[in-house]
């Protein structure tokens, strides 16, 4: 079974979980009105199920999923999420140089000029423009 075909099954399962699990638990039942809170979500989930099943049975198009590359993308995603958590914890000014340092280390950037520019000048200039000039608070 190809990944492309399998994606149709995954989509159909997502549609089913929306219809029978998420929508009933995350919408309120209302007796009045023409358009109930769950009406449009239910219609969209039915479309998702039908489209997913159709794709599972008659797959068209293609899927290009490289597991090794996706794991590396996932790593950047995790690093950024941790960076976000740090911003919440210790603030933008402290967390951003750490986040950029880790990213620079991951991609093996060794040139001092670009390291200084990314780790120090970039966060400082963003802070200057946003916090100081525009008077908008940063995390």
């Amino acid at each position: 079974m190809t990944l492309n075909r399998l994606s149709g099954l995954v989509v159909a399962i997502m549609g089913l979980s929306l219809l029978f699990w998420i929508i009933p638990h995350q919408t309120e039942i209302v007796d009045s009105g023409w358009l109930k809170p769950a009406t449009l979500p239910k219609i969209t989930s039915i479309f998702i199920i039908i489209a997913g099943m159709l794709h599972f049975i008659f797959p068209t198009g293609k899927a290009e999923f490289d597991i090794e590359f996706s794991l590396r993308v996932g790593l950047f995603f995790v690093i950024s999420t941790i960076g976000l958590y740090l911003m919440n914890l210790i603030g933008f000014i402290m967390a951003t140089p750490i986040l950029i340092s880790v990213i620079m280390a991951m991609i093996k950037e060794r040139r001092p000029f670009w390291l200084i520019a990314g780790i120090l000048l970039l966060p400082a200039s963003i802070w200057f423009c946003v916090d100081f000039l525009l008077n908008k608070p940063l995390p």
Partner: protein
Amino acid sequence: MIDFAIILGGFADALTLYNLFFVLCGVVLGQFVGAVPGVGPVTAMAIAIPFTFALDPLPAIAFLIGVNKGGLVGGAVPAILINTPGTPDAAATTLDGYPMTKNGKPEKALKMALYSSVTGDAFSDVVLITVAPLIAMVALKMGPIEIFALMVFAFSIIAGLVGDSMSKGIAAAAFGLFFATVGLDPENSTPRFIFGHFELYDGLPLVSVALGMLAVPEIFRRLSMIRGKSMAAVTISKTQKKEDRRVSWAEYWSCRYTILRGSVIGTILGAIPGLDSSAAAFMSYATAKQTSRDPDSFGKGNIHGIAATESANSAVSGANLIPMLTLGIPGNIAAALIITALMIHGVQPGPLLFHEQGRLIYGLFGTLLMANILNLFTGLLGLRLWAKIIGAPESFIFSTALLLCIVGVYISTGGLFGVGVMFFFALLGYFMNAFGYSIIVFVIAFFLGERFELSLSQSLNILDGDYAILLTRPVALVLFGLAIVSVYWFGIRTNKKKE
């Protein structure tokens, strides 16, 4: 009876060095803030309003208009150079702008964006100046049923963007529409899919979804590709032909129908209060792709793609002033801010405005035209600077882009929750892209979804089960008819052609 003395007096008021200075300041500030994702011209206008108290009404409005128009041009810069739209209006510009940059033609892409933006803007300004009251009357006839019909028509155009798999396209559109239903439902105001997060009462933030789906996955992808010493984000060969750096008259002229179509779409949608420029840009892009002789080249760096989106989103800005000046109804947030500034200066927008403040209004029209010309020249100077910036290595450019996305969303949404939402959609966008599900269809469906559900709810309440009322709504009937034609033309016929 038209009083030419008032018209000439208004234009004479506008065309002074004093006003020129404020328009120029506004344009430069607008282009700068437009290029910073998340900040945008609306934020800059909101911040600037108190500073305009000290000015006379005309230079104050001239400055705000300059910021707004400059922002439209500035938003396209990061969209083209680093695949990160500076403003949500420029989201559609990434589709062909960034591929052109990757093909080593960033300057050409930026110049086409600038020329199309200025042309679209000038078109809607001319329409505003000449036929504003007439268009306002037509726009006023657009009730909820007509808006719903327009939304159905907009969705029908998506049929042309689903690519080589109809089932994947339908799934992507349905997911987009589903995510648009997060938040309070339009009829009963009950919360849906908020999972205990009060931040979701207003729905998913547009900017989080747009940057999450379009920009962040590409940033992660590009960062993941770097192993060892990173090269310049875009390598422009020193022996690059002059033609790849500029837009020739022949190229601009070849895009005339695309630009005209985009300008018309932007002007019409802009005149209808509540419809934003993102919808206009995506609709224009879809129609340009479908009417092109080479639709497969769209998304791979087709200059017509940039012309279509930039002309449409810029045309909205002038047209938004039509309902504002004639009826006192702001078409979007920028127009609402201009109304605020007018009212602060003692000017009451509405049907009597042309009669009571004719000279000021024609002065305003003069500043609109002035802002367009300044946008062109300031843009041409600024683009050289921007094109040099992307000569920096990928490690720096994409780290900057990631940080700008985080800061931009944080400012727009007012907290880190919006940034978390952006990361969620980045993950979704990555998987959708890897498995061939159209991100652009998802984003368009999401953008249109909220308005679609609201107008559906209002229409059902108006009809109250009596669907014969539809027969008394000719505009809605025409739009429904167009939707049927468009599904056949863009979807069924195109697929048959491919087979």
